[in-house]
């Protein structure tokens, strides 16, 4: 097992290097120029544009830029944002707490609804409870989370004259202000997230409930709650955990539109701004960060599999 863990950790390095190379190449293939963009709409002569490009190192050959960047990376230096001139690490660090917290709250919200409702829907298959839960979950899948967000904001403004705060307050400073800002986005994102997880829980649990060992457990006279929770649910959780984990990883950088709707200063909005600005160092750092999150989450999920299903062994 230890060998497996070390091997997986070492494998992350070439994966992330591959991501880095791919991001570098793809971004250079996309047309556009941060300097022209910076001065868009202004009467700025070409020599100023050329000088500015040189200042940012964009006039160097691509391979030189690549070597420079990889050298910096080797020293864990992500460089400076071409747009603001500030360290990329600072730009990311400013936004990361909000994105992480939102992902955690949305996940808690989603799991809190998905697991119990998914189990009820499976256990009470084809009853009114099952139908109601399925309608609820289809609603979550059908409605984009940003639209739910817009409706929530308009609803609270219209009916209560209130909208979530526009400025992020860390939870350690003022938990009320913090949750006031994040609860509505977490609900709008978590609803879709819970719908996906709920349907997965229901379908996998239905499969497991038809297994022989569940019939055996029931034949032994075990209480239904014990049969479901201890014998069926645990085995049904493998795909559910995978879905929940990947959704969590997605939430770190994928909530672009929701962040816009609630004006959240998160990683998704930063990534879109960076791409819009052709801010190469920032894009590269963010893609690396998001790739790392996915790689690490996948790794953790694999380890959770062992805990959930003792039959799984890595060597």
């Amino acid at each position, binding site marked *: 097992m230890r060998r497996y863990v070390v091997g997986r950790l070492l494998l992350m390095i070439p994966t992330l290097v591959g991501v880095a190379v791919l991001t570098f190449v793809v971004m250079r293939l996309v047309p556009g120029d941060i300097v*022209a963009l910076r001065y868009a709409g202004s009467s700025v002569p070409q020599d100023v544009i050329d000088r500015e490009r040189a200042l940012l190192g964009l006039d160097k050959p691509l391979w030189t830029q690549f070597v420079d960047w990889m050298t910096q990376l080797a020293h864990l230096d992500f460089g400076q944002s071409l747009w603001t*001139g500030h360290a990329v690490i600072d730009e990311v660090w400013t936004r990361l707490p909000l994105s992480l917290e939102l992902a955690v709250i949305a996940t808690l919200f989603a799991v809190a609804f998905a697991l119990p409702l998914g189990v009820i829907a499976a256990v009470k298959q084809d009853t009114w409870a099952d139908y109601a839960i399925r309608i609820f979950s289809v609603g979550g899948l059908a409605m984009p989370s940003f639209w739910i967000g817009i409706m929530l904001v308009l609803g609270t403004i219209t009916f209560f004259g209130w909208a979530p705060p526009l400025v992020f307050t860390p939870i350690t400073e003022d938990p009320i202000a913090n949750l006031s800002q994040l609860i509505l986005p977490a609900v709008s994102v978590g609803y879709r997230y819970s719908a996906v997880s709920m349907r997965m829980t229901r379908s996998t649990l239905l499969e497991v409930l038809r297994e022989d060992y569940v019939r055996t457990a029931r034949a032994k006279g075990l209480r239904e709650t014990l049969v479901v929770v201890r014998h069926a649910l645990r085995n049904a959780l493998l795909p559910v955990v995978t879905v929940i984990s990947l959704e969590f990883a997605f939430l770190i950088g994928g909530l672009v539109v929701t962040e816009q709707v609630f004006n959240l200063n998160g990683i998704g909005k930063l990534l879109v701004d960076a791409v819009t600005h052709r801010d190469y160092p920032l894009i590269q750092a963010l893609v690396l960060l998001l790739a790392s999150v996915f790689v690490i989450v996948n790794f953790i999920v694999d380890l959770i599999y062992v805990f959930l299903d003792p039959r799984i062994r890595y060597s």
Partner: protein
Amino acid sequence: MEALLRARIAFVFLVTATLVIGACAQQAKPGTSGSPAASLAGGEKPTPGGTLTFVVNAEPPSFDGHRETTFALLHPIAPHYSLLYKFDPNDLTKVIPDVADGNPTVSADKMTVTIKLRQDVKFHDGTQMTSEDVKATYDKIITPNTAAGQSSPRAGAYAVVSAVNAPDKFTIEFKLKYPSASFLTNLASPWNFIYSAAKLKADPRWYEKNIMGTGPFTYVSNTKGQDWVGKKNPDYFGKDKDGTKLPYLDGYKALIITDATAGVNAIRSKQAMIEFRGFTPQQRDDLSRALPNDLAIQEAPWICVNYVVPNTKVKPFDDVRVRQALSLAIDRYAGGEALSKTTIVKDVGGLMRPKGPFAMSDADLAKIRGFGKDAAAAKAEAKKLLADAGVPNLSFKFLNRNITTPYEPVAVFLIDQWKQVGITATHDVKETSPYQADLRAGNFQVALDFNCDFLDEPDLQLAKFWSASKAGKGLNFAYYDDDKLDGMIDAQSRQTDPAQRVKLVGDIERYAMDEKAYQYPVLWWYRIIPYLKIVRGWQIGSNHYTNQDLTTVWLAKS
């Protein structure tokens, strides 16, 4: 000697008049619309205190006003700085001294401008501002130290300056290469923040990441992507006409909200009081309905315009008849009426802002192809010109930005107008970055370009009309070279008689828009600012760059 003195006094008067005339750039007659019509509080006594919260819909790149060109820098950062001259926040038709102590003195040969400085101006670190600081500031703007990484996109606007001198501690002197009509008003450029010479000496790029000015508000904090906070500078030199110390506000907070709907919601939920750039008519109406008793609205013509730019290096747009036909096909008056209901364009005008100090009369404008009121006759002429040029069924790609307000509706309008004369234009919408790349590489047939300025000033608005291989390099995306037009632009720039200059500018408009039809405006923009009416002491101007230091803004108690 006495005659020389009289000449000097007369010239000072003339210069002051020129400044005032130039300042008509700001002469945007504030209007109101919508049901909540309270706009400006007249005769009220300002109440000190409170924090102004406003929306900025973009993030400033660096913090250096000399280096950047976006309003997103001015709105949060201008309150930290002073200028040499500025536009009077109480009367935007006037230029008034800021750190200058009175109007400039211009020598008889109009080649030396001397300005006395206030002696009570302090930087936020407590050091006194002197002429060395003003000299260092203007040296950085006019002749940036490029070797040290300084950059100044507006250096060209001061090409007339041969030297900046500091003859004594509180006097600054500009030596000019030739008399210039626009130089004095350019001293009120909102970008020309006065910087500390000591800071610039220690690090020529210090101001890109730091704030330290002499303005009415000191820097408190900036959370990237979220907000910018300033507080009242107790040592600010400014006072109002009653002798009350400025600014009135205790502080301000700029909220960075890039999504337009979120910006509207911020005002609707009263988390923000105002956004200084502008909203669409629909957003104004939404806010009016939601806040019928709490909203005020100011509106004004805007010194921003979209141009149709045919690439003259690409056939058949090298043929003047084709370019003229493209302009003739556009019924601008009908377009203005229809589009002004949904987006931020409205007035028909030439190369200078309609109703501005350099605008053509309506009668003269109507004589230019494409600007007449008989749309049917113009369209018939367009068809004839296309047929004569051998392209009766012209088709091309029309390059545009993927920005809804107002680029996309304007382009859709144009495409429809062209279709009516047999032209098939395919809307080629691109993200701003590749759009800019195509413009700069000449990789397009016809494009929708745009321009915004802080001042009604021909030197600014005609910058895109210089020959593409000379002064217009990187600006003129029609890619023509025309020595005659260059000569005309240069001549108006050197003409210091305002009336004569207006005439020269009119000649340029006729030549560039009609005779050669190089590139031409579609519709001029219209600025709409709905805001909570507790905000007082702010007046809309014809641009979103000036009048942003917030010195005279105050908050009513209710």
